[in-house]
């Protein structure tokens, strides 16, 4: 059982550029990911929105492996800014986990 917390979601929402609410989980992005990470990007964004911080933390390698190739983004039927979201998330992790400013 994982507890949902709105804290992380609130912090992400406050950052410019993060939008994942429109996602309707078609999975096009996961299917197109050249790195083949199942988590990228749809489940990851959901974990963020639900505030599942531990899960997000275990997926840090995947988050930083993303090539930002935007293959997923140009094919997203709901227009989610996937690459921007990844950047925003990296920025938050840099600050929060690694103490980078």
């Amino acid at each position, binding site marked *: 059982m*994982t507890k*949902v917390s*709105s804290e992380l979601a609130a912090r992400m929402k406050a950052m410019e550029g993060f939008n994942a*609410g*429109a996602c309707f989980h078609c999975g096009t992005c996961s299917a197109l990911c050249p790195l083949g990470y199942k988590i990228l990007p749809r489940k990851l964004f*959901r974990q963020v929105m*639900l505030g*599942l911080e531990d899960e997000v933390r275990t997926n840090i390698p995947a988050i930083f492996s993303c090539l930002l190739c935007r293959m997923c983004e140009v094919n997203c039927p709901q227009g989610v800014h996937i690459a921007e979201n990844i950047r925003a998330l990296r920025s938050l992790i840099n600050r929060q986990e690694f103490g980078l400013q």
Partner: protein
Amino acid sequence: MTEERRIGVYVCHCGGNISDYVDVKEVAETLAGEANVEVASTHLFACSDASQQEMIEQIREKNLDGLVIASCSPKLHMFTFRAMAERAGLNPYEYVHVNLREQCSWVHKGDRPGATAKGVNLVRAGVAKAALTHPLTPLRIETQPRVLVIGAGAAGMRAALALADMGLSVYIIERESEPGGWTAKVGRMGPDNRSGPEVAANLFERIREHQHIALFTDAELTAKSGHIGDFQVTVRLRGEEDLSLNVGAIIVATGFEPYRPRAGEYGFGLPGVVTLQEFRRMLEACEGPLTHNGRPVRDVGFVYCVGSRQEEGEDCPEPNAHCSRFCCMATSFSASLLHEVERKSNQTINQYHLYRDVRTYGRLETVYTQARADGALYLRWDPASPPRVEPRDDRLAVTVKDTLLGDEELEIGADLVVLATGMVPRQNDSLNDILKIPKSKDGFYNEIHIKLRPVETAIDGVCIAGTAQGPKNLAESVASALAAVARTGALLKKGFVNLEPLVAKIDTGRCVWCGECFNACPYGAIEKIHIGEKEVAMAIESSCKGEGGCVPVCPRDAIVIEGYRDDQIMAMIDASLEEAVPA
């Protein structure tokens, strides 16, 4: 058999649909020599204008007094050929339709000799029946240009206005003391943010101004008699005064009841667990921040499909299998209303929408898209593991397996849990006893044909409109109300209606009034009359559908259905067994 008949037998190829599998020529030739058959031939398409013209000429020329056409299903062309018989000067009820396509060629494709032999038997039975026909005249009923509308919700009021605009007089009766129904209580409605009370008030205002409409509140239907085109109804006003009205048709727009969850269903009964209707009232009343229990609300869980799409289980012996259609849209629209409160009062409210499938079809999709764009989070659950709602400290804990995260079990802390309760049929037992409209499995009033006759009922002259027929949103309710108006207008503006004479006839000499037929008739078409001292049953021709439930239950064999008389049926059986059982 009494006297020799002069029957014309026509066997149709149906362009190969029949003739590819049945030797139609052989069928016609076999029948040509048999008793009562004056002429027998084949047609490539009996329904074509040229073939009909040929048959008409032959009927006149040979002075035929009976007609059998062996072709497709009677549902397709029985009325075509009845009309043709009439044009030829024959009584349309001396025509007998034999189904040689659906009931013979199409089902015996691998057996031409067998199909042909069966075809002969079917046509022979048709001839045997035709030989025992006699001319019948349709019943002509004069219609009264007045309509009773039951229920003054949005559907009933919209129907009343449209009927009155056609020049018909309308009585609209409402059980409650105010018109408007649920529409007047719902608040703002998606997708266009219109106010329900304003919509209802607008309709009411127009009704008050219309000189052809009389609205009665605190009014209930207590009796109905008569038949299509001419009903006598009694309306009780304020529980005391009776009003007798004479109307030509009735529209039933009695609406729905919101589903009331069982105690404990998704935590129903716990403080903070509310129905969608209750939540909407909270939002309507809310000025400034939304609070519950004296605390600002921070997290709200919505559970979809409560009381809809249920599966049978121990705690749910009579499940509502239907989707209630409006709740996905209404709940997603509530998300936007809640976002509005959030923005206005500078309050942070997290929304978790726990759904099974989001059915915001058509234009309503914009409501769902808007809710997500504003930050509402949608989590999908599977009916095999529904969400649980439990008290936790002084809040609520909602546990859900999110299938979009691979069935990960999540616990959401919530101040409020809103149950998206659907629509269930109204409990209107006394009205049901009077109207006798058949109900469908889900308990709503049943239409005759879900696609092609969506507002007519098995009771002639009685239409259903709005959510009395099944869950609908307001736009759909109004559309169905106007469909009912179209059917009612078509009936009453003509001034009369012709009814099938294929109805029950009761031999009053034999009848001893045991009441069996009265109990068997689903249409209320049997009534008790007195002939001198004797009590006997009489069939009300205008209410009878010729359905025949009364015939086998009569212990005195006193009832026949015209067109399906016992002697005709016996003759058909004898004829079709002629070869199998030699006389």
